[in-house]
């Protein structure tokens, strides 16, 4: 296949060819980055929480007025909720649950030495300490959430304290255990929470923080045996997936019957699927927008390629006829247009790959996006080559159907 005549033709259509090259380049740059952003977001929205999300529903309740013994009230509520048919287990938490955005974090050090280093450096991270999110909850919490205890034991009844008092023991997530005590068994180890000592008695396989900071610390979590004793409390109920809505409605009735004066906002009674959807709502919106714009861009570019090839085929009908008359086969004509397209897209892709890297650097600077993995570039390039070939196929086929006799006709 002779490439020179193609170059000669393209030189005649310099402006149009340049415009199409630019379009391919911009499309390549944007689509590569958009694809990366989609992958990034999809990874985020599919983060597992480590709890039995499909079977859980949550009712936040706020008491009004002063109550002498909130925990006693929560306890009687729990007993009433347990009576609802379909409820397998129920627990009370102050406010923190995975992905509900109500987070409380404490600085935790694996040893006294680490604590001293952290105090010296005025930074938790520098001393080998971390700031995990802390969950509290009533005794049935592990069973209700469906947490997978991989080592150690659950809390004993006498280990629970009421309210925000200091605890002696804690259950931590496996990610936190590996971070604090790499290569060792965390069971029985002492953690320093400020100057206060907490002993690790159990490890759960996975428990996600209430909020995501995206710094690799989102699975650093621990559970303290603290009984919620504030006026506001959230009840977590476990039931069969299809029963969740009914259980929520029943729970509201039961709770209001026990005390009609408290506030239960029906909008905040949610199944865990709703909690997850709410948490990631911006991400899912963004994913669909990114997807739509990437497809839109590819469509517009394909349209540009087809349209342009169509015009060129019409314009060159006579030339094609002459070529056919002097011996070119149909395949030659087909290949001619395909090669022409390949050349234009190649120029565009080369430029586009550079633009994609530039765009990624810009995004990294302004939107804290990670670096674009390099393998996205050849994949993006291949996608555009394929798109170009598909888009040019119809016009090129039409060109190859031109009869040699056209050469003899006047246009």
């Amino acid at each position, binding site marked *: 296949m002779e490439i020179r005549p193609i170059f000669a033709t393209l030189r005649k*259509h310099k*402006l*149009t060819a340049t*415009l*199409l090259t*630019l*379009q391919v380049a*911009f*499309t390549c740059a*944007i689509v590569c980055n*958009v694809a990366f*952003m989609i992958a990034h977001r999809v990874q985020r929205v599919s983060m597992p929480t480590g709890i039995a999300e499909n079977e859980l529903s949550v009712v936040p309740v706020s008491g*009004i007025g002063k109550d002498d013994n909130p925990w006693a009230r929560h306890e009687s509520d729990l007993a009433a909720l347990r009576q609802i048919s379909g409820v397998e287990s129920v627990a009370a938490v102050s406010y923190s649950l995975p992905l509900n955005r109500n*987070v409380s*974090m404490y600085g935790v050090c694996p040893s006294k030495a680490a604590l001293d280093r952290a105090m010296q450096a*005025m*930074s*938790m991270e520098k001393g080998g300490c971390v*700031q995990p999110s802390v969950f509290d909850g009533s005794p049935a919490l592990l069973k209700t959430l469906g947490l997978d205890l991989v080592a150690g034991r659950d809390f004993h009844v006498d280990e629970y304290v009421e309210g925000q008092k200091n605890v002696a023991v804690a259950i931590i997530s496996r990610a936190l255990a590996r971070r604090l005590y790499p290569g060792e068994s965390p069971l029985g180890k002492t953690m320093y929470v400020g100057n206060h000592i907490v002993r690790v008695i159990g490890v759960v396989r996975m428990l996600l923080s209430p*909020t995501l*900071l995206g*710094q690799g*610390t989102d699975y650093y979590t621990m559970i303290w045996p603290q009984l919620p004793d504030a006026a506001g409390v959230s009840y977590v109920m476990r039931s069969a997936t299809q029963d969740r809505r009914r259980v929520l409605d029943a729970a509201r009735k039961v709770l209001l019957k026990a005390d009609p*004066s408290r*506030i239960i906002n029906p909008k905040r009674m949610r199944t865990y699927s709703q909690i997850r959807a*709410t948490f990631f*709502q*911006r991400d899912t*919106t*963004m994913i669909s*927008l*990114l997807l739509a*714009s990437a497809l*839109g*861009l590819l469509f*517009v*570019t394909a*349209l*540009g390629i087809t*349209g*342009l090839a*169509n*015009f*060129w085929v*019409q*314009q060159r009908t006579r030339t094609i006829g002459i070529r056919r008359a002097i011996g070119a086969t149909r395949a030659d004509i087909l290949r001619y247009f395909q090669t022409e397209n390949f050349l234009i897209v190649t120029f565009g892709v080369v430029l586009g790959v550079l633009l994609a890297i530039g765009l990624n650097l810009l995004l990294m600077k302004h*939107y*804290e996006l990670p670096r674009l993995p390099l393998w996205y570039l050849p994949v993006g390039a291949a996608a555009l080559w394929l798109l170009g070939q598909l888009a040019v196929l119809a016009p090129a086929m039409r060109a190859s159907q031109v009869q040699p006799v056209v050469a003899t006709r*006047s*246009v």
Partner: protein
Amino acid sequence: MLGYYIDLAVGSLKRTPVLTALMVLAIGLGIGASMTMITVLHVMTQDPLPGRSAHLYRPYLDPLPAVFRTVPIAADPRDNLTWPDAMALLKEHRGARQAAMAGGSLLVWPQRTDLQPFYVDGRYATSDFFALFGVPFVAGNGWSAEDDEARTHVVVLNETLARKLFGNVGAIGRTVRLGDIDYRVIGVTTNWEPKPLFYADAPANHFGDADQFFLPLSTAVAAKLQVNGNVSGWGSDGAPNDLTDGSASWIQFWVQLDTPAKVNAYRQFLVDYSAEQKALGRFQRPATNARLYSLMGWLRHANLVPNDVRMQFWLALGFLGVSMLNIVALLLAKFLRRSPEISVRRAMGARKRDIFVQFGIESALVGVAGGVLGLGIAQIGLWSIRQRPDDYARLAAMDPSMLIGTVALAIVASVLAGLLPAWRACRVPPALQLKTL
């Protein structure tokens, strides 16, 4: 002649109906997406108090210790003032008006038996608040500086809350129970809601509901009412127990300064004040850290537009850019294919300008059709944004200026897209093409 050109253009576009439709669709999508996002950015960055905002300023002090440990999720404590600093600035009275404020949620106990107790959001503020921001009253007034001093139990309600509690009967002089305390209603404001709610604290809903009650800040502090938003402490024991402590920031402060000279004087005053506090040992950092933000400058500092929205904006513009490139290339190829026709017209006496106008009209037609489609797509886009649960969502609608802006963008885009192809077409030489016929 113009009519004839339009006829020619329509005829030419009709010869390639599919391509024309796709070109219109591409530019319509580009314009629609761009206008949707421009409108969203426009409503999120608009001036909340037109006419008054130019004279409103926000002091910024740096009372943090020289070494300060940051927590990943916490906001910058310096974005708020401490109680002693706010009170000092109030007392100095350097601006025409000034007010300190903080947000709060209180449980309302209605006297009507058919209403359950419910929580409302409001503001604790000092007496100048209403005059400073020009809050319009339906009845009654705000409180006086003496009330601030005496920590009087008075409250100003907005129209919605007043109507909900007392119906159509006057609310003035009535008593309302908020939390554990009875307050006397002394004023009812209109449902005043500047968008964005520029004076609210960083975590607040800046595009959400307005304040429904206002009561004296001193009263709230004396009664130890709960404060919404960031209360950042850096005292030795970590969490602040006492809000009047000098090492806890939680107060928002605004001051009215009418002339540039007064603005400069106030800026200097803040630096001097910081230097004085440093000499006293309360501040540790350089006095020149003190700043004065204008209202719009503060909104930029607060960065109310989420990154996702900015990203969507750039994405939309990128889409429009690629669509435009696409249209230019297609029109160019289309026009040049008609070189023989152009040659004939030129040979028969048409000037370059005539050819330019003829083809310019053809591209303008594509652009106008794309613009009209874009306007429709933008309305659909804005509708879909209004369905989002975000607080800014319900503001996403076009005002007349944005409507005109969309039409202008469509015209500019189409003219730009048509310029190059039309110019190229009018340069086709008359004779050369005739030879090949």
